[in-house]
């Protein structure tokens, strides 16, 4: 019956190891792993960082097209930390969605102070959950500084923006949000994507690859770029000098009513359930743990755009936020309510609005040491301000005394 049951090592194909010579012993694999790790962890990222020039504008406002390039953001932060004592962190309101480089909040402050004091480290679309990731992984250099951090309540105006919804949706800065815990039910990326994000955050080599892809390969994968540009040399695309300076002229004069925006009836998320608010509290704690003096700018959204019911809900949320800040002895400033015509949309001010916001910030004790030098000059300027501006300034409240 069992005439000739053969052992398993009988045929040539079973004896042959492989059709190539890449057969390594354990020691050789160890050497390979060490070489690869050295290249990936140290050699390439450090050499690249040393060789690459990141040319920033005066206030470090990162160009809109670089908003997803966290490698450049990290370099930008490191440069800013060497030059500026004050940094502003926030979303497009601080970044300056409807204004050019000269009319952002930090740029106006620097102008009013007659010196380069404040760096604009805001990024468009940076909601609090993403901001937590940005500061935690790419903003580690922000320490021992005065930090003005902007809380835009707009991110809590619905379950969708608060990231509390269950259905999948597009998220701003998905590579900055929590990948596993705390879980975001609306973020349904596959495991491979989530693990890729973790690698990018923790291994600079991956962050660098992403930077190269974004900056030099039209945001395509290398393979796709090669296919789309068959005869181009990929190496010639790469440059060791980047200019992430916003060049596009953004200076809209149209206010929200001219754009035909109608009244909004938002159903605000309760603070206790808000993921954005929870994340924001975490960021404040993180910044404080890095020995920063923190002042929260509690953003005033455009109140004229809200229905009465929605405005009441909004006011109660702001009250809750301020209460928490007071209870935890965290400095804050409630941003002044602007005249209706100074809002470009639901939350973004126009250039005149930023002037008013800047004046409010200059009043805070944290800016005192810089402001006192130019106070006299400012007094003269104030006299020239129109009546509406004066009235609005009176609406701002809070202080950074407790810092």
């Amino acid at each position: 019956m069992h005439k000739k049951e053969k052992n398993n090592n009988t045929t040539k194909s079973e004896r042959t190891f492989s059709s190539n010579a890449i057969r390594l012993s354990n020691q050789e694999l160890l050497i390979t792993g060490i070489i690869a790790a050295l290249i990936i962890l140290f050699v390439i990222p450090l050499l690249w960082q040393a060789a690459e020039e990141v040319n920033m504008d005066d206030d470090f406002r990162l160009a809109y097209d670089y908003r997803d390039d966290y490698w450049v953001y990290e370099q930008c932060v490191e440069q800013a930390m060497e030059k500026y004592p004050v940094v502003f962190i926030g979303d497009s309101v601080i970044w300056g969605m409807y204004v050019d480089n000269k009319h952002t909040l930090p740029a106006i402050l620097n102008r009013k102070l007659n010196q380069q004091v404040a760096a604009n480290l805001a990024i468009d679309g940076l909601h609090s959950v993403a901001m937590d990731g940005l500061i935690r992984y790419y903003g580690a250099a922000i320490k021992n500084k005065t930090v003005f951090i902007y809380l835009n309540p707009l991110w809590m105006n619905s379950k969708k923006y608060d990231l509390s919804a269950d259905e999948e949706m597009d998220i701003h800065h998905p590579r900055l949000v929590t990948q596993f815990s705390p879980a975001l039910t609306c973020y349904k990326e596959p495991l491979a994507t989530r693990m890729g994000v973790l690698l990018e955050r923790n291994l600079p080599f991956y962050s660098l690859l992403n930077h190269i892809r974004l900056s030099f390969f039209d945001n395509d994968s290398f393979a796709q770029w090669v296919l789309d540009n068959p005869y181009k040399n990929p190496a010639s695309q790469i440059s060791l000098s980047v200019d992430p300076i916003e060049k596009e002229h953004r200076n809209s004069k149209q206010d929200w009513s001219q754009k035909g925006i109608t009244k909004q009836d938002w159903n605000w998320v309760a603070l206790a359930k808000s993921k954005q608010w929870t994340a924001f509290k975490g960021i404040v704690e993180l910044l404080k743990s890095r020995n920063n003096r923190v002042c929260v700018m509690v953003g005033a959204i455009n109140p004229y755009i809200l229905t009465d019911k929605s405005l009441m809900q909004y006011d109660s949320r702001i009250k809750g936020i301020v209460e928490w800040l007071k209870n935890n002895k965290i400095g804050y400033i409630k941003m002044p309510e602007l005249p209706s015509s100074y809002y470009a949309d639901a939350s973004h001010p126009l250039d005149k609005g930023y002037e008013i916001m800047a004046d409010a910030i200059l009043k805070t004790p944290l800016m005192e040491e810089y402001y006192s030098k130019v106070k006299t000059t400012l007094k003269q300027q104030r006299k020239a301000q129109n009546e509406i501006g004066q009235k609005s300034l009176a609406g701002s409240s809070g202080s950074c005394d407790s810092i």
Partner: protein
Amino acid sequence: MLFHTWEFVIFFTIVMGVYLALKKTNWWTLWLLAASYFFYGWWNPLFLILIVYSTAVDYLVGLKLGDSKYRRTWLTFSLVNNIFLLGFFKYAGFFAENLRVLFTIMHVPIDVPEPNILLPVGISFFTFQSMSYSIDVFRGQLKVEKNYVRFSAFVALFPQLVAGPIERAKALLPQMRHRPIIRSIDVSDGISLFLVGLFKKAVMADMLALYADKVYGDPGMYGSWALLFGTYAFAWQIYFDFSGYTDMARGIAKIMGIRLMLNFNNPYTAVDLGDFWKRWHISLSSWFKDYVYIPLGGNKGFKYKVYWNVFITMAISGFWHGAAWTFVIWGLINAIGRVATMRIDQQLWYKKIPKFIKQLLVFHFICVTWVFFRAANVSDAMLVLKRFFSGLGGDPEIPVIIFALVGGVWVYQLVFNSRFRFILESWPVRIASLVMAMLMYIIFATAGNKQFIYFQF
């Protein structure tokens, strides 16, 4: 669950941890079976019903083959059952579609319904593996396996379950009859194999796929140069894809102390078609040789009978690959080519042709057959072939870097098969090759993990 995914990394880490803990007990085969069923059920838990059924039938048939008077009847039952499973799940749609066309032509008023059957992943592989057991037991080349768990683990062994290599029962079952011995060299060999397979699949195959898919996605849009290079790209894509998978499968099995056979041996260095089929998908070619070609008569008998045996074997092999006319034609062209060149290596004039020219001739013949393998339908394939000779060149827009990568691999294979192999075998070259492969994987691996081509079979 693809080998080059994080899901697999987690799965394998857990499986291997428990496997190591159990390898000195009798529970290891049960754990291997549980892991294999979990792996297979990851695609679709319903697939498990099919593999459990197929396994149970062949297990019982095996027992009957051991002591029954009706051994031939039981073998026939096993073969019919497996072929029926394969035919029903894989070919029902094809037959229904062709019946519909036939009835329409003959004006027969019968409406053949669309079967809409989900094709279980890897069915062609595990049914063939299971059949090899029944045949080997019938032939007396293998002991009856009385342990059901062990037999089930042999059929469902997860590293090679969905795309081979199609292991023979007589090679794999004996390994599972004793507790696994994992030596240090098994681990290093396994890791080496896995990493090379990963590079082949995620860098080479997936990159070539971008060009091949583009051209074959709408061949009417491209001139002869693009179609020619698209065909070359596919030829290498399918090689890297399939051989990459089997490298990874062999590596994983090796780490677990299980040896699987070599499935590809630099097929594009073959000097004739017979040589090619000894190097391409070796486990399938040898399966057909042992269980179809030799039972048909093999090399015995008069010349035309041998040709007929070769022709039939190659044609069936073609149909095994897929339920479409393109695969049938692919098999037939290979069959004709194989028969026509059967004695070519004995011809004096052929012997005088330089080896490199022979390799180029074989490669180009195989490329012509790949046209049918890759094209969406026969008319697309015919269009591609016509365009090859139309002279309407056009700009192929093939990335230079693809040329460089494929050229590099080809040169590597040629050197590997030459007297200069020692250069590739020196430790600095081996280490540098692997470091390069890993870096290229990180840089070039496309964002999404592409399915392996042979999963569809």
